[in-house]
């Protein structure tokens, strides 16, 4: 198993799951990513990301209710673990640190005017 590094897409997925609160399952996650992050991904690609995250222990999942719309098949809901939340914080702090190191002028050309 790979280390506990958090990939960029995985980070997005984690954030989306958190934002969906207790309605995070395949269809909603995919839709949210499409709408909010403007990235169209296949369900298969999302599945790969979800299994990775689960292997790393950043999310857990549990089976939910079935629905006639789904051909009577059960949903699987995803929730972010504490470890996942910590990983998100880590990722954010690393980024913030990097942001802070950059001279303002480079980030906002024309700031001094």
């Amino acid at each position: 198993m790979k280390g506990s590094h958090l990939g960029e897409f995985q980070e997005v997925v984690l954030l989306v799951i958190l934002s969906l609160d207790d309605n995070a399952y395949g269809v909603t996650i995919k839709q949210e990513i499409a709408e909010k992050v403007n990235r169209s991904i296949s369900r298969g690609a999302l599945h790969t990301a979800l299994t990775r995250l689960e292997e790393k222990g950043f999310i857990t999942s549990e089976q939910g209710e079935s629905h006639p719309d789904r051909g009577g098949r059960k949903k699987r809901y995803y929730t972010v673990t504490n470890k996942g939340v910590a990983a998100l914080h880590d990722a954010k702090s690393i980024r913030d640190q990097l942001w802070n190191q950059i001279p303002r002028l480079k980030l906002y050309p024309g700031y001094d005017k």
Partner: protein
Amino acid sequence: MKPRNNISPPKYYEQFFEWFCRPEYFEELQGDLEERYERNCIELGQKKASGIYKREVLKMFRPSVIKKINTQYRLNNIAMFKNYSLVALRSIARNKLFSAINIIGLSISMMVGLLAISFISELYSYDTFHEKKDRIYRVINTLHEEGEDPAYYASTSPLTGQRLSENYSGYEKVVTIYRGFSADVKRDDQKIPIAGFYASEAFFDVFTFTMLSGDHKRTLTDPYTIVLTRASAEKIFGKTDVVGEIIELNDNIQLTVTGVVENPPRTSHMSFEAIVSFETLKKVQDPKRIMRWSNMWNSHVYVLLPQGTHPEDLQANLEEIATQENSSFGTSSVEMEFQSLNSIFPGKKLYNQLGARMEIKNVNYMIILAVIVLASAAFNYTNLSVARALKRSKEVGIRKVVGARKGQVFLQFILEAIIISTVALVFAYFLFQLIRPEFLSLNRDIQRTTTLELSFIHYIYFFVFSVVIGIISGLLPSAVLSRLKPSTILRGSTQLKVTSGFTLRKLLIGLQFTLSMAFVILVSLAYKQYQFNLNFDLGFETADILNVRVQGNDSELLTNSFSQVPGVSSVSKSSWIPSVGSFWTTRGKYIEGDNSTTVHLLNVDANYLDNLGHQVLAGRSFTEGMTVPQVVVNQKLLKHFEMGEPVDAIGKHIRLEGKDRAIIGVVKDFQHATLDNEIFPFAFLNEPDNYQLINLKIESADNINTMQQIEEKWSELDPSHEFQAFFYKDRIERAYSKLSTSLQTLGLLAIIAVSISILGLLGMAVYTTESRIKELTIRKVLGASVQNLITLLSKNFLLMFVIASGITIPVTIYAFENWIVPNLVHRIDIGFWEIGSGLLAILVLATLTIGSQTLKAVKRNPVEHLRNE
């Protein structure tokens, strides 16, 4: 909500997804996809939703979703493969007889397979070196003449080429090729013969022949230009850097060399030593005559189509040209079509081919034969293995109890079959090397076009082929063995249902026998017909006649010179020789009557009729120095023109070749064509300038010495051309080479078919006696005689034999008359012995096979088989 059954996602995709998806994820993923699909159906419509669904399923094809193959099982596999191979080898070594039967049978038939693979792959490598090969098409003609079947020609009038390039657009290039360039190059008092064809300037734009020197755009543009090949340039000049040199031909024509190309590859359907510009031909011959619509015998038109154009799009052009030109073509008409370069060689049968020819029909026959022979041998393996499954059943039982799955047992036995077929491949390879020269000398087309040289890719083909054969022949036994239930086997039940399908097996053995009987009978029939043809009484003497080609020399000079050789008893001259398949025909008209007919002609000198032993029924032969046109005819001509008795015909006139000719003699009818033709009205002419052959009657004790002297005389008179002579008998033999090819092919097939079926029978005989040994022994103890036992065991076989021969005889006679000698007028009578000898031979072989096994079994001491119960 809509009812569910109306809008379920594409079923096959769902099934496919379920098949490859890991079961623990399927519920969730399929649910998600379906939910999305439902919503898309409402938002986008079912069609779009289905498309999205399909794409989603295909994108699921990723490692994280696909079922995992159990890694533990995979590791285990390597060990198991070792074990399977070991067990397979042991089992091959233990059953030496059966392994030998299988390996020999398979290697014989795989040899045929190897021949087919290398032969066919070589044929299909033809013309692949042309860079634009997929865009090159040839115009081919179908000639409809009144009252005759349509005739198919590879040639077309040069007018077609001219009109296509001048009146129509849509062709990138059009090239006209005109056959029949052959000349002697004068060089330092020597004459060097070269041959090739004429071609228009686009030739090198269309075809890819490597240009060694010269500008390929201009090489064939001007009149009196010639392109040489490396070989002919070296032959004439001793070097290839000869652009700009001038060569002088024997008829005082001078040509400038404008290019030298690499020798055409062997895999080119056209071959040449030299190409002369088409413009030259228009200068040295009457251009009007060449460009005539009716002059469609020597020329070929090839077109290069632009990228993306299909020949069907341009078919209308050809139809237009044909309609316009046919209007002035009398009662005949020509139809034209495009033939792609890739289907020229091998291709359909066409007259007037430019070079090498190979009928696609022959290729198909080869494939069919190979498949039949292979199926026969593969069936032997299947049959023997299934029959002996009983012996291996304990092994299967133990394996299954220890934990082998059905698939593993299946794999094991397939692997065993592949090992056998791979061993057979090695033997087949040696057999292939042995048979290769025989195969190549089968007929002249094969000899000229193929070498059967193997390259690396062939070895790969061979290996794949042997694996495929192994899989096919191992399929059924593996299925039977892997289906066995351990509980049944290990309980010691002897009632194993492995012999089910016994009737199918009998049927297949019967088929094998039908096949081998058919081949044996066909061989004996074809052999008899061949001998019959060669020894047919033609009505004149061909023995000891040596024909020497005149090759443009003075025939009178040659005749005088040859007649001085001791051992040459008489000499005559003729334009060609009859009975070997050549024709020269014209319309003949009886002056007093008014009917005309096709008359076959032969131009001969005064000695000919006497020299060839023709029987003159009335009148006389030609005499030297005649001035009035005269003719000697056969009885058939008299009959046709109703001239009555031979004596009455003398002095009557017929019109032939533009002259009224007096009949001065009548000869007895003789077989002037090959035996597939009737005798036609025939006339001997006497026109001195047209002799191509000198016929020498050799009566000498020392033929070799006489031949040498004749050859010496030749080189005195004509040092530049090679002496070309052939005995009449040999040429007749060559006229029937097609039959002798069939004979050889059938002979080979008969040997293969018989050996395979005998091997199969041997295997079955061994198996039957082995499995019934106790029964036989008890019968023997109770007093059955050896004869009784043999009858008991071969009764079934005899029945099969009778049925098989019942099928074989009519089928074989039909095949012989319709396929082997379809057009023969003079056919042998098929009597009892022609058929019976073949059947008898097979019967004796088969009885010996079964009898020997039975005898071996029943002669053993009964105690040996009965004590261990």
